[in-house]
């Protein structure tokens, strides 16, 4: 049974010292499919071009305040409008407002863009950054980000936190694919 030992220094900046790990070539940490700036910088390390990566390199997590560091938080389901407008652009640890990776079905809950896709916003910010860096961007493996069902298969189960239920399920009166298509087209879900 794992228990934790209280450390008087263990507050925000401190906590237990990290366990030393073997040095390895670092990659850029980003929060989802299609958001990699460099070749080989996705979870599998096999992508060939900016924007074509398969999945996040940032550590997977499922809720607000659980991201490790700068640029490693998702967004959309919690947090204020500023946070919800900047998926993958948080300034520091624990400032992300939602889970990583960002499933295609996730929508924003505040502001004028309420109900619209989080992943598309992340991709927009990424493309703006690449344009500024004079880099061409390849297509994302999935045009509107990874569907939740795909992440469940890849990651052996996945969901972002929250109690409002399945983000894509049908009650018998809708086609989940139609909803996904609307979100993908930039419409409100």
């Amino acid at each position, binding site marked *: 049974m794992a*228990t*934790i030992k209280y450390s008087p220094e263990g507050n925000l900046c401190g906590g237990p010292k990290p366990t030393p790990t073997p040095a390895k070539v670092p990659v850029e940490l980003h929060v989802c499919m299609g958001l990699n700036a460099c070749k080989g910088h996705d979870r599998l390390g096999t992508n060939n071009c900016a924007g074509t990566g398969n999945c996040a390199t940032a550590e997977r997590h499922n809720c607000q305040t659980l991201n490790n560091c700068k640029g490693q938080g998702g967004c959309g389901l919690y947090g204020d409008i500023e946070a919800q407008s900047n998926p993958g652009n948080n300034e520091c640890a624990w400032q992300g407002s939602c889970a990583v990776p960002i499933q295609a079905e996730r929508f924003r*809950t505040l502001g004028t863009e309420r109900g619209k896709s989080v992943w598309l916003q992340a991709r927009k910010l990424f493309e703006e950054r690449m344009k500024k860096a004079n880099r061409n961007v390849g297509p994302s493996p999935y045009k509107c980000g990874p569907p939740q069902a795909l992440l469940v298969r890849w990651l052996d189960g996945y969901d972002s936190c929250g109690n409002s239920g399945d983000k894509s399920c049908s009650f018998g009166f809708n086609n989940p694919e139609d909803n996904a298509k609307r979100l993908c087209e930039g419409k409100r879900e």
Partner: protein
Amino acid sequence: MADVKMSFGLSVELKKYPLNFPILNFLYQNLILNLSDKPYYIMTQDFFAKGADPVTPDNLGEAIQQAIEIEIATIPTYLYTYYSINRSPDQEAIKTSIIEKLVAKGRPPIEAEEEAIDLSAELMVFANKAGALIMSVAIEEMLHMALSSNLKQALAGMPDLVGKSPVFPATLAGHQPPFPINLAKLSQDQLITFLKIESPTDLPDPRMLKTINYTTIGKFYQMIIDCIQKNDLKYMDGPQLIEGKAFYAQNNIDTVYYDKKHRPHFTNMDDSGDLCHVHDKASAIKAIKCIVDQGEGFDDEGLIQPGDRVNCTALVPGDFDDPEKKELSHFEKFVQIYCTYNSLNDRFKNLDIGVTDMYDYFVVNVADNPKIEHYPANVVPVANLLNAVYTYIFVMIEDCYRQSGNTQWEIFMFGIHKSMIFILNSICGDIMSLKYTYEGKEYVVAPTFNDYKFDGKSRPKAQMIELFNKAVAVFPKIQYLGQRIHDLPDVPNVSSTNSF
């Protein structure tokens, strides 16, 4: 007998009485907490109890502290009922059950399936909507607690938040007529209690025998507004929780529900209210108006009628709390749940298939006002941890009124948000996977929302970690929370309440 002296002079005396008629007159002159066949507790109080004194500069701080404690009392009340709702029940199981019952009644299978799909979908939407609406109110109550704390900080000094959660069954301090507030699962009776809490009009009570303290929360706050408007008060410059720092968000995924087409609906609006830095008369009144408008609506005519009947007529402008008329007031949100239940439950009843209360499909069987001492030994450590996390949230909020700048920001964002959204929510979910038997009946374990009494021997966080270690030893399912508890800010407990 416990006698607790609160910091603002309210003397609270808890006495245990058997129920009998000769003391009824006495009960009506005090606060009746629970009319049942069991012993119950009566809270007698001096504050505002004699002659409905208006709020004056002399007692303004005490009045605002009373307001803070009114807001605090609503939070566990709403959260408990919220957690009793399974927001995503098994539609397939519900549908199959309805089909079987309809076919047994002679309905053709195809027709039965069509009816079952529609009814189960309606029920799925309702369960999720009820949860979203109650959560949308709960987060606004947290906003109200912060707004009233800002008021106190500006006008009287430090707000007292730790150790102020009520013992259930409880009452709203000073409300006349008194009515019992229980930690209870979602039901029409519990919704009536919610409507009484948020009622914009006086509660009809022919039994009321004495001068009122206040009859609606809005009127109570109006007394504070009157005092602020009439007097040239000094506004102090202490740390507050203010707007523009990402402390408050009107909506999150828990305030969202999906309709039958699985389109999301947002129960709070962006313009319905926010934190407010109280620094002068105008900002003080703005903060109070936000609290009152969100709770009761702008100018609602009130819908509770004698006999606790609710008028389910069409919405009127006063039912909304935002300028755009898109967000319902707390009162009206609860009316919506109450009345939607009635119409949907009538559909079940009209089918004559033996379903008399559709809450049975998605409301978890938790006990009324559970006590930790009712729980078995393997549950107690988890319940204690839950209460410690719950109490530590108040410790951290209170500390936000001592700290400023980045320290305040980190405590709020990394402590309070992480505790509310992730740690407390997770433990509440996990603990409800356990069951226990009390007095021959089986219940699902639920949060008791007691203030945990941190001792003075070590800091609260260290005690919470020890509680976690004990809890995870009997309930390994919560192991994933260990690092997150360790990540919390290490805030001292310097509450002015002696027992904490």
